[in-house]
């Protein structure tokens, strides 16, 4: 039995290498699977290809029959038309328990760029499903990937690795926005400027039901472009104060060197809007909105990029503290999985050996009773039981050694010796 993973991920390789080795579409992946299947028909395989990693898991029942690290590097090189020398240093390999532990860490998001992010387990599930659809999964990979999904769920339940938001936009909307407003579908969002962060924040706001979006920019043309893209309405910069007065959520991401909204400006806005609640996200650097605006009254909630980043950092730190707990779970689950696998490898041999010896015992007992026909049932039973005990006692030491050895890994040498010595066939 041989388990192996070859991979490059965000920790080992730059984006340029990962891009070259990734399988960007389902069709490309299916085509890769068909090449692999032709080359290694006996090998079970699963490919995980995301923007942060390309990993190929292989498993074979016989240790010699699977592809080697070099074979797989050659496959990647030929398939993607990239020289092996370009990526081999970043193309790592793990085998046996290390490969299992690696998959468990990946599925539990311990190996992710954003620690504890929830998407990776779905990507692992999709990868496993794709390999199953391509008939490349077998008993080992089925067991491995199903266990990885279970381990991921256990880590999520028993640790706080996935808790607390860690991106600026999710903290802004999820942690603060949802603490202010009960619902967003009746709120008007004003975007000032056209920074990328505004678009990301809008994704979260739209998830909450926002559909009234107004874009204001110094350049009306740019405002119109963004408004078309996000499904909003563009307004000229001169209307800024009116738009602010009508808005409930203000997201500002201009490239201005000085605050574009100060206290007097916001006081004028308040005169038009009345005493309503404002949720303001100043995502510009330097700041677009004077921090004193947040102190004008109790209904203005102003957050700048540093406030949001501080919360993200606190949540990241909290997640980091859970890593050891998660690793302990993964180690425990890896050991359990490997014991199961080793037991699976030695189980058939033990069973066959027992059956073979007991078959011989039964044949000999039958012969003996044929010769000693004067024995009554009680004596026959006594003799039969004694011989059975002798067989069991003789079998005990080799089987015990086999079990002991199986705790450390598949005892290929012992299994081969037993097969040869006792003529056991697979």
């Amino acid at each position: 039995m041989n388990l192996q993973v070859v991979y490059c991920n965000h920790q080992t390789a730059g984006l340029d290498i990962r891009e070259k080795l990734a399988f960007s579409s389902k069709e490309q992946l299916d085509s890769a699977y068909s090449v692999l299947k032709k080359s290694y028909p006996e090998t079970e395989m699963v490919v995980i290809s995301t923007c942060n990693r390309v990993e190929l898991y292989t498993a074979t029942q016989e240790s010699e029959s699977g592809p080697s690290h070099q074979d797989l590097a050659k496959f990647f090189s030929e398939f993607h038309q990239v020289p092996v020398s370009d990526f081999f240093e970043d193309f790592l390999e793990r085998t046996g328990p290390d490969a299992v532990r690696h998959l468990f860490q990946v599925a539990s998001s311990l190996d992710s760029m954003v620690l504890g992010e929830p998407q990776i387990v779905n990507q692992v599930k999709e990868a496993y499903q794709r390999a199953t659809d391509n008939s490349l999964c077998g008993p080992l990979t089925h067991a491995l990937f199903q266990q990885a999904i279970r381990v991921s769920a256990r880590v999520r339940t028993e640790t706080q690795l996935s808790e607390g938001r860690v991106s600026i936009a999710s903290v802004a909307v999820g942690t603060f926005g949802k603490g202010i407003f009960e619902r967003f579908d009746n709120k008007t969002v004003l975007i000032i400027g056209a920074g990328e962060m505004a678009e990301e924040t809008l994704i979260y706001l739209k998830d909450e039901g926002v559909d009234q979006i107004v874009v204001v920019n110094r350049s009306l043309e740019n405002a119109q472009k963004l408004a078309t893209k996000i499904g909003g309405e563009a307004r000229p910069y001169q209307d800024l104060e009116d738009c602010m007065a009508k808005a409930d959520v203000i997201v500002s991401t201009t490239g201005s060197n000085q605050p574009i909204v100060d206290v007097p400006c916001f006081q004028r806005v308040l005169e038009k809007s009345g005493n309503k609640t404002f949720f303001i996200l100043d995502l510009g650097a330097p700041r677009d909105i004077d921090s004193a605006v947040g102190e004008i009254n109790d209904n203005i909630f102003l957050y700048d990029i540093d406030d949001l980043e501080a919360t993200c950092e606190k949540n990241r730190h909290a997640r980091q503290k859970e890593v050891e707990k998660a690793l302990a779970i993964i180690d425990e689950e890896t050991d359990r999985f490997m014991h199961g696998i080793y037991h699976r490898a030695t189980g058939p041999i033990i069973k066959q050996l027992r059956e073979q010896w007991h078959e011989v015992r039964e044949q000999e007992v039958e012969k003996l009773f044929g010769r000693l026909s004067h024995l009554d049932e009680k004596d026959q039973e006594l003799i039969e039981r004694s011989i059975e005990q002798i067989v069991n006692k003789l079998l005990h030491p080799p089987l015990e050694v086999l079990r002991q050895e199986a705790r450390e890994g598949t005892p290929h040498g012992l299994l081969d010796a037993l097969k040869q010595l006792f003529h056991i066939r697979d």
Partner: protein
Amino acid sequence: MLSNVTVFCFMASYLVAFGLELARFLRKKNKFIRPLIFLFSFAGLVAQTAYIFNRAQETQLPPLLSSSHDWLIVFSWLLVSIFLFINLIDEQLSIGLFLFPLVLVLVISSYFVDSVTNPLVEPAIRSWALLHASLLVLGGVGIALCFVISAMYLIQHRRLKQKQNFSEGFHLPSLAKLSRLNRGALMISAPLLTIGMGIGIGLGVYVRKGAQSISFYDPVIIIYEIVWAVMMISVIFILRTKQLNQKHIAQLTIWTGGLLLLTFIGIQILTNVRVLNFDSWHSHYSVPLQEIQGESAERINS
């Protein structure tokens, strides 16, 4: 078995539930905490229901009419029922942290107030007296909820203004939802208390005509009326103000609600232990002092 239920039984259950809520607040992530909180609260509620039922059988009166002790027990029973209902709807909400201290205060206070039957509740006025007590207790529950919701509002507001994150085990609704709920609870409890108090005055007038006479200078009634007037001024202020500052409303509600709750409970304890030594319809002057004190001591020992 339920006939042997004492106040201590359900008080202990609520104490454990409150302890578990605190553990959840302190980030002790455990999938069993929430079901345990529910279990202990529910067990406490079952025990409390049995206790109320037993008391009603003993006194041959509905629990709200029999004594101040039973009135407080029913008050806390309603709060626990509300907690369990909210817990079923939103398991994340940390309302237990706010409601359980109130429940425990009410249950502990019930040790120190009269448990003897009110002799003035004649059969002829029983229905009206029941309505009077029911409206007051429901109004009281509404005020208790206003108090809790306002406390939650102020904590949530402080967090948002200070740009802080709550711990994972602490979840509060949004400010908008809290202010909506606060307004709703206040608008429901104010008329209930007003009608309840009106019926109480009517009952007083009726009793004055009969053999028993009560004085409208009864300090308990006067204090209740003052607190009620404060609450009504607050409600009118909230209704008349055009541009509401929700934080100020929460502050106002927390003070008014706190004062009302303190009066509700405090006045009953003070009259029972004879710190306020006067004849009152709500403190049973017809019962000798020693007898009342003996009963309280017995309950505490049990």
